[in-house]
């Protein structure tokens, strides 16, 4: 059969020459029932092993939130079949396997690939999204020959970085992010190496969670490996080899057919933007600046079903936590496809192979150094893939499949905490209830409320009580945040807010990774974006006295974000409300308070077209406020809040449309005014810097910019 590297080269050459994974689907055509049984056997073993692994981990991230996934690969590293969970990693693990093959792990006498070996990786430039996601990969041998790989991944709570938690907020390069495992052999003959365990025990703040996660991944992989051997026994090795390749090819063909059926061919465009405001936040000089990061995105859908995504114009990578490796972009695309066009039948790398993605080298989406900080790569990946959601939604709309529209993904804030816990031990974690945000609106109904994450189609926020077991904070509030999804005929799904009381520890750090300066989740076709983020916190409070006096506490923000309950009820040494959502690790003590909300995503359609009955239901269920009902939706509700007043609503909506026509100006007039502003350089400094940086990397985006605004060739900011 040749070496793994030779087989990989042969596979690549075959793909280049024939444009498919295999030409004939013999197993499928000869005996489709047997073929489907074969697939079901693989699928069920992956899913069952995932559930078993979940029970081995002790981490709420895995047990409660379900942040794990397993996949089966060909010898060349292409995914054949996968479990549910954080599917974003199905393709990142594929990258890692290919990397090991390319780097001669098989022949290197100091490494080698043998039965029972486990390779752990969280190096995102080998294959991964951010260091928090640790993958284990083990080979499957049959009669001495490597016939496949199994990979398992979990999001660990703590990675030993510059700040506690799994996404160190002030990590500006790889060197701040914590332990990086570069496809490292951590187990032999199914036994974990003790020296590896020692490293984890001595270099992370919550080693027991890491090491139990490690056992969960290994156990899942072992179960799958042994089950696959049973399947080979039953079906024969030749059948196994052929059928696994056919599953990939079938997925590729199905995907192309789905695209042809469901998307209108053409050119689709959008752009995404985020702010990473680091200025005056005690960062090293090289990072002491406000970053504005963006990328245009062009998607072309051709008549053969091929999708090409081009991020030409993306801004360069920078010294912040939010760069993204190409592997992460691959993973993001994979999990996006599983939610739109490749969610049924055979879900594997075939769909991914049918697409092409162009990532400008040197950009934040494809840094020209492996040292770029990626600890919160999702900060980019969410808007970059949310943009794909919006473009696919336009294609689905044009073809009439409006029930499949999902106009964007939430770009959620994240809370990291650590320090000394209630048991007097070091701790650190991402509080990953952020998995349960609101989705973008759909084309015929509202977005999903408090149950959506881009990276894990099986989103679950986890029980508050489980989190309280491991952190010295108690949830004194967790509830839906009104108006947290984008307004629209169909609104974005609602997010929710959590309020924590620090308890039994005077040594706690809390950080929030969010965006205050922009709306990172736009709507489409008249729908608004979801709101910007912020935090409320109080340090040195009178909460202990209030509890003793049985006085009320701020369990939620209250109806008015400008005057939150925390400000109205609490006296504190330091009280910050509506504060910048990018908060680096800040010390908190017992009886201090911290609160923020997880966003929803964009809305769909003109809000004035929203069914007034839906607005009333939203009022009753806490999804919207009386202010938004009247001002944004133009709905007049009776004083008791029990019914909509139809005539008054119709009149208010007509008046709002007339008002729009009175206040709006022709676009040509806006362009003249905006052009002058550009010529005079009257733009925010971070925005100007971003344009300049984008132009340096992309002469074509610069040309487009100059052409659009009719600016002279010599123009520069």
């Amino acid at each position, binding site marked *: 059969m040749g070496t793994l590297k030779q087989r990989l080269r042969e596979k690549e050459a075959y793909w280049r020459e024939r444009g498919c994974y295999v030409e004939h689907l013999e197993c499928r055509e000869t005996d489709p029932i047997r073929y489907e049984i074969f697939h079901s056997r693989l699928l069920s073993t992956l899913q069952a092993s995932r559930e078993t692994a979940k029970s081995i981990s002790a981490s709420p991230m895995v047990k409660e939130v379900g942040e794990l996934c397993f996949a089966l690969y060909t010898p060349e590293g292409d995914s054949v079949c996968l479990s549910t969970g954080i599917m974003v990693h199905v393709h990142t693990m594929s990258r890692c396997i290919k990397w090991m093959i390319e780097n001669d792990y098989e022949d290197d006498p100091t490494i080698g690939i043998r039965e029972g070996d486990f390779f752990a990786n969280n190096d995102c430039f080998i294959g991964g999204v951010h260091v928090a996601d640790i993958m284990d990969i083990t080979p499957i041998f049959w009669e001495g020959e490597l016939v496949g790989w199994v990979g398992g991944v979990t999001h660990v709570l703590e990675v030993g970085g510059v700040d506690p938690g799994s996404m160190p907020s002030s990590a500006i390069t790889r060197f701040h992010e914590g332990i990086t495992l570069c496809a490292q052999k951590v187990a032999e003959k199914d036994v974990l190496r003790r020296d590896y365990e020692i490293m984890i025990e001595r270099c992370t703040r919550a080693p027991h969670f890491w090491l139990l996660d490690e056992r969960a991944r290994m156990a899942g992989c072992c179960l799958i490996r042994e089950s696959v051997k049973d399947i080979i026994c039953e079906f024969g090795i030749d059948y196994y080899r052929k059928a696994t390749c056919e599953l990939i090819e079938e997925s590729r063909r199905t995907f192309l057919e789905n695209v042809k*059926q*469901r998307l*209108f061919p*053409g*050119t689709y*465009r*959008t*752009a995404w*933007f985020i*702010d990473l405001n680091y200025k005056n936040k005690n960062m090293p000089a090289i990072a002491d600046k406000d970053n*504005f990061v963006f990328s245009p995105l062009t998607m072309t*859908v051709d008549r053969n079903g091929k999708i090409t995504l081009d991020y030409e114009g993306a801004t360069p990578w920078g010294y912040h936590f939010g760069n993204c490796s190409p592997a992460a972009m691959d993973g993001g695309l994979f999990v996006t496809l599983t939610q739109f066009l490749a969610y049924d039948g055979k879900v594997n790398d075939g769909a991914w192979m049918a697409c092409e993605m162009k990532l400008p080298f040197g950009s934040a989406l494809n840094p020209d150094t492996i040292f770029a900080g990626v600890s919160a790569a999702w900060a980019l990946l969410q808007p970059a893939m949310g943009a794909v959601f919006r473009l696919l939604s*336009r294609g689905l709309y*044009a*073809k*009439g499949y*409006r*029930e499949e529209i999902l106009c964007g993904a939430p770009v959620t804030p994240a809370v990291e905490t650590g320090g000394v816990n209630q048991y007097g031990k070091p701790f650190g974690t991402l509080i990953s209830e952020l998995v349960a945000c609101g989705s973008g609106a759909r084309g*015929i*109904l509202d977005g999903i409320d408090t149950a959506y994450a881009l990276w894990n189609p099986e989103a679950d926020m986890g029980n508050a009580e489980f989190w309280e077991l491991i952190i010295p904070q108690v949830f004194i509030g967790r509830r839906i945040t009104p108006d947290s999804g984008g307004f629209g*005929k169909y609104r974005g799904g609602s997010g929710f807010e959590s309020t924590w009381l620090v308890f039994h520890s005077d040594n706690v750090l809390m950080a929030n990774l969010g965006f*205050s*300066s*922009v*709306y990172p989740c*736009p709507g*489409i*076709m*008249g729908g608004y*974006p979801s*709101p*910007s983020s*912020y935090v409320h916190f109080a340090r040195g409070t009178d909460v202990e006295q209030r509890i003793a006096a049985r006085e009320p506490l701020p369990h939620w923000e209250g109806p008015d*974000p*400008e005057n939150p309950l925390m400000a109205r009820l609490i006296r504190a040494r330091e009280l910050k*409300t509506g*504060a910048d959502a990018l908060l680096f690790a800040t010390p908190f003590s017992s009886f201090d308070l911290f609160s923020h909300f997880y966003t929803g995503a964009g809305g769909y*359609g*003109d809000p*004035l077209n929203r069914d007034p009955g839906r607005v009333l239901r939203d009022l009753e269920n806490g999804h919207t406020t009386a*202010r938004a009902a009247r*001002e944004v939706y133009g709905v007049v509700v009776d004083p008791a809040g029990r019914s909509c007043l139809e005539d008054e609503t119709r009149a208010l909506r007509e008046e709002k*449309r007339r008002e*729009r*026509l009175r206040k*709006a*100006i*022709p*676009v*040509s007039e806006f362009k003249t005014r*905006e052009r002058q*502003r*550009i010529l005079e350089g009257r*733009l*925010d400094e971070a*925005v100007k810097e*971003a344009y300049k940086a984008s132009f340096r990397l992309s002469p074509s985006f610069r040309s*487009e910019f100059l052409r*659009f*605004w009719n600016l002279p060739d010599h123009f520069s900011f």
Partner: protein
Amino acid sequence: MAEGYPKETIRDLIEGKLPWATVKEIMSSRKDPDRFATVVQIEQERVPWSEKILLPLAEHLYVVEKHGAKIVKAFCGHEFGDYRENWKEKALVYVRDTREKMNEIFPGPRACDPGKMHLREFICPGCGELLEVEAVPPGFPLIFDFVPDLD
């Protein structure tokens, strides 16, 4: 469902009137191959004008054939011109570029920094419908959302 749903079912579906259980069933079934033709037919019956719809472009907007040309036309009848040119150029726009204007939609801290991002609300000149909301930094070129391949 391989052959297609009754037109009434699709009409109810795209108007958001189908119960969730039915929507879910449609989502979980094989897609009806005649959907495009059915939706175009439904839209053609809804619009108050007679030009042939080539495709629904977005809520309230269609690409239609008129005197041999392919143009973007609104539900209300307003015409934006050749579909290969960005219809936004012929629209009205309201730009939310101050805190005060932002606060009408997003109160207090929920509003973005208008220096870093503004909202461009594209309004149909014919009827005041909100057609699109761009959330972009000042200076960003208008986004040409979609050019269908009609040739």
